């Protein structure tokens, strides 16, 4: 118990003298301390504990529609994200393309990710679970949970990561400055350099049918475990 335990221990027969008052202002906290960056950094970090994984990364579309590595818990996650963007392949990018979760048991044995693996083979992360992050019903990024060593993601783990990605999306919604499309329209808004498909595709609508997760590498993972 943290409430005034000292007060309890210091008396048994008579009440203690009232403690000196603190100004109410002393309890005033700067509620504006939480910048969007701090909030997202904290959210990504908590993801490691709640999802019981080794690393978590967050990739988001920027204002020009380009996918960027935005947040990560450690150097490994940073490299994994940056390399995906660099080589143009990986579970995060596939999540954007399909607007659905991509579960990779072992990056090392996916032929389609050969270039990615060449860049990340030294960081130790093998299993990656990438879930779409949605805002306002559209996919705006992806949350990547990763483990060292091959790992077949269970249905429960996939549900949990998807639930967590939903929380990331709502925190983004809250963090985004207020505004309307008309108020904030900019020249060149449609000048997207990549990943414009999912946002414009009806497939990305939250109102659309539930999409099954798209586990990949199951066979390869089995082979790896042999």
């Amino acid at each position, binding site marked *: 118990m943290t409430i005034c335990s000292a007060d309890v221990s210091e008396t048994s027969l008579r009440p203690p003298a009232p403690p000196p008052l603190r100004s109410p202002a002393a309890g005033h906290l700067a509620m504006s301390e939480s910048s969007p960056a701090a*909030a997202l950094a904290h959210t990504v970090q*908590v993801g490691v504990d709640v999802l019981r994984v080794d690393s978590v990364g967050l990739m988001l579309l920027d204002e020009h529609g380009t996918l960027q590595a935005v947040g990560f818990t450690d150097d490994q996650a940073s490299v994994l994200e940056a390399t995906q963007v660099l080589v143009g392949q990986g579970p995060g990018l596939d999540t954007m393309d399909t607007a659905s979760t991509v579960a990779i048991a072992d990056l090392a044995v996916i032929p389609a990710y050969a270039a990615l693996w060449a860049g990340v083979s030294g960081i130790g992360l093998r299993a990656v679970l990438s879930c779409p992050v949605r805002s306002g019903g559209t996919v705006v990024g992806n949350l990547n949970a990763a483990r060292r060593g091959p790992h077949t993601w269970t249905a429960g783990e996939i549900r949990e990561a998807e639930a967590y990605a939903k929380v990331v999306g709502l925190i983004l919604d809250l963090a985004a400055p207020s505004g309307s499309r008309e108020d904030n329209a900019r020249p060149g808004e449609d000048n997207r350099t990549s990943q414009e498909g999912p946002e414009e595709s009806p497939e990305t609508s939250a109102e659309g049918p539930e999409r099954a997760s798209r586990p990949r590498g199951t066979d390869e993972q089995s082979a790896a475990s042999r």
Partner: protein
Amino acid sequence: MPVDPEALTSSLRRLADRHDREADLTRSLNDVTEACVELFQVTGSGIMLADDQNISRYVAASDGPGRVLETVESETGQGPCTEAFVTTRAVAVEDLRTQRQWPDLAAAVAAYDVRAVLGVPVRLGGVTVGTLDVYRDHPHSWEDEEQRALLRYSDLVATTLATALSAHKAQELAGQLQYALDYRVIIERGVGYLMARDGVDAVTAFNRLRQAARSSRMKIGAVATSLLEVGRLPTEL
């Protein structure tokens, strides 16, 4: 750096461009409770926050029984969630039906399958402003690991609140929580004083403050201030 501020700012600008309506904090908190159910495989989840009397009140729940649990706790001033709020620590109960500590709560939720309950404090800037609560529809002994994980998730509830407050998307809640933040220390001191003076536990002491506030039509912070100044509750003068 764990987050690239420039990249994030650009992404948030994109979201602002696409938002036709403001994010709603209550809806967001409901989503947080639904995600909590998925993440921790519990039957239901809810969030209580301090009102402008620093009384913990229901604000969001994943289902009806969870809402009933929290509403009854607000009304009766007893239960694991209330105790977690007052004592600022996790409070677990294996089976509400068989425990004897909170008979009014047990009777009120008897019609619902609310059995095992775990309440953990939600802290904003180090000050407890509410609780995150989960329940199961069967008796369950809450493991330390479960309690730690839920405490971690309660950090996310605090982050959600702080984000909304920082973005000025929860002005009513901001005023409400500001009172709790301003007076929490004084109320805690008042609680501690009553515990020592009357030899009661923290929840009983808190409820005496609360009752005195109701009877004297004062805010609980003012009651605590008065208690600390003169050593008596307004109703004892």
